[in-house]
């Protein structure tokens, strides 16, 4: 009874801040909280552990412990008394590695491809490192200088002393990277322009943008590629017709632009009306307003979707094989048919290698996007 009377509704003494209740400490606490908090949770945890225990050891055995790392032909990867059940035949990948990277690019000229990779890596690094100096120049380098110079450099210019290498000889990772980079580099600006055109006040511009976007989105990429490689020569005189790779590049770039336009449009719709009004009230002309106020916010909002589109595009580049271009996956297809390496595990190894390559590239992009997102989110709360 006395305790009841002492409890009053009005405080007479100020309430001092108290430290928060102690967390359940350490790793055991974390495990309890996250993995074993309820019967359902415990069951799920056990199922997952069982699944991993079932799936992981054979995979490790095949790809690592029983894998063959060196050798000069199929003998190394066939079953032998020492290795009755050989795993992945990495020796095959090692031997064919240069083909996977360069395709039929002449061996004496491989250094040119290496220089291209290096220049590309520099450009990506410059843009990807958010606090790098002079990122404006970096953008000009990446979006304008690099593509033009790379084409001249890889294609060759006899006047500059660089032997000509027809694009029919390009292949492997080189082609995959070229197609993906061109797709990304073209689709972002073109997609932004298309998205703006779709919201334009001028009906003709809007009609053009809508027609283009809806047509391209309504057609499979393979069809676009076929059209680019088969139909284009019907309309353009033979000597003006660009070569096979360039035609495919145009197809991929236009295809990606249509998708990018829709992604950017989503971002534009997320910018509140008040932002336009504030910019207009300050007297900013239309294009300035778009460039300084609307697009930076729209692109920020939609960054995850943009990267998602990039990842999709990167994987879609494998479809260029359909018009006879030797991209990375196609070189693996070609190599695995090599009778010198005909073993039961060759194909699996080749495809695993391809999967690893695509996974590293796409996962890298997605991780990078996550980092930029968190960084931008933090910056705005500074």
């Amino acid at each position, binding site marked *: 009874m006395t305790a009841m009377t002492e409890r009053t509704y009005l405080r007479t003494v100020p309430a001092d801040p108290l430290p928060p209740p102690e967390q359940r400490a350490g790793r055991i606490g974390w495990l309890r909280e996250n993995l074993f908090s309820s019967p359902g949770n415990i069951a799920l945890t056990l199922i997952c552990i069982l699944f991993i225990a079932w799936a992981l050891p054979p995979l490790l055995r095949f790809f690592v412990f029983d894998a063959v790392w060196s050798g000069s032909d199929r003998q190394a990867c066939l079953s032998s008394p020492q290795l009755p059940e050989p795993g992945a035949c990495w020796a095959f990948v090692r031997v064919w590695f240069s083909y996977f990277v360069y395709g039929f690019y002449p061996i004496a000229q491989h250094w040119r491809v290496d220089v291209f990779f290096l220049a590309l890596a520099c450009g990506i690094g410059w843009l990807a490192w958010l606090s790098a100096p002079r990122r404006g120049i970096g953008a000009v380098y990446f979006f304008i200088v690099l593509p033009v110079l790379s084409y001249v450099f890889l294609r060759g210019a006899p006047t500059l002393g660089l032997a000509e290498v027809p694009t029919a000889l390009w292949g492997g990772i080189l082609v995959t990277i070229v197609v993906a980079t061109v797709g990304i580099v073209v689709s972002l600006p073109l997609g932004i322009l298309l998205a703006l055109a779709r919201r334009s006040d001028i009906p003709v511009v809007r009609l053009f943008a809508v027609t283009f976007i809806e047509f391209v989105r309504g057609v499979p990429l393979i069809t676009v590629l076929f059209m680019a490689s088969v139909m284009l020569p019907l309309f353009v005189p033979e000597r003006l017709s660009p070569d096979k790779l360039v035609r495919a590049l145009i197809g991929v770039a236009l295809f990606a632009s249509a998708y990018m336009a829709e992604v950017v449009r989503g971002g534009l719709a997320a910018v*509140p009306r*008040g*932002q336009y*009004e*504030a*910019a*207009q*009230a*300050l*007297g*900013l*002309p239309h294009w*300035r307003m778009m460039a*300084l*106020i609307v697009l*930076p*916010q729209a692109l*920020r909002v939609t960054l995850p979707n943009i990267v998602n589109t990039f990842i999709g595009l990167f994987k879609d580049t494998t479809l260029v094989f359909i018009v006879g271009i030797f991209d990375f996956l196609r070189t693996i297809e070609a190599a695995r048919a090599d009778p010198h390496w005909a073993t039961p595990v060759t194909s699996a190894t080749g495809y695993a290698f391809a999967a690893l390559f695509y996974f590293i590239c796409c996962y890298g992009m997605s991780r990078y996007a996550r980092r930029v997102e968190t960084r931008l989110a933090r*910056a*705005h*709360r*500074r």
Partner: protein
Amino acid sequence: MGPAMENRPDASQADTSAEPAVEIVGLHKWYGDFHVLRDINLTVARGERIVICGPSGGGKSTLLRCINRLENWQRGRVVVDGIELTDDPKHIVAVRRDVGMVFQHFNLFPHLTVLENCTLAPIWVRHMPKKDAEALAMRYLTRVKIPEQAQKYPARLSGGQQQRVAIARALCMSPNIMLFDEPTSALDPEMVKEVLDTMVELANDGITMLVVSHEMGFAREVADRVIFMADGQIVEVNEPKTFFAQPRHERTKLFLQQVLR
């Protein structure tokens, strides 16, 4: 205001002493079938401070937004600083450079710092060197008493601080006319005063002000004229003393009873 006016998109060259700051003649506006503004006639002299009040949906904000052409209209004329607002984008931009606006929801640019918010228009519209623009911005930020927040992003500021940044941002364009569209209605009560104080100071500097607001204390203190709008019409215009003491129209009386309680 003959056709001669139309050849003067730059207000700084106009003879600014004689003509009114804003002249609105026979203005009509429809949203679809809804007649929002009905035959508005209003002349605002230079340096005049006007408070527009009235029930919501009465067309106050719409009228204000016609003055810098954020809203289009179907009939009537609006002449600001001697420039007639037509479809000509040159005229529109010229008017907007001369007219500052402060919004209910501040509308600061969230991806730019406070300082960048203020320097944006001077740099890109007035083509001022960055250094000068920053000095100018700091001067106005000091005037609204938040120079120490210059490097922060707007999201880190309180509502009252954000609105003061918005005022500084508008002032950086050295406008002749300031429009305030319910500048305090989105603020928490304890922040209303700091924004009103800033506005009173501004009013004392003699800038032409049109304020849509329900802050009757502010109207009483600084307004030269109070306008009461309802149903898209200007129902009553008077100097504040008479306006509050002897409202003539029933609607005005009713409205004042509700807000002054």
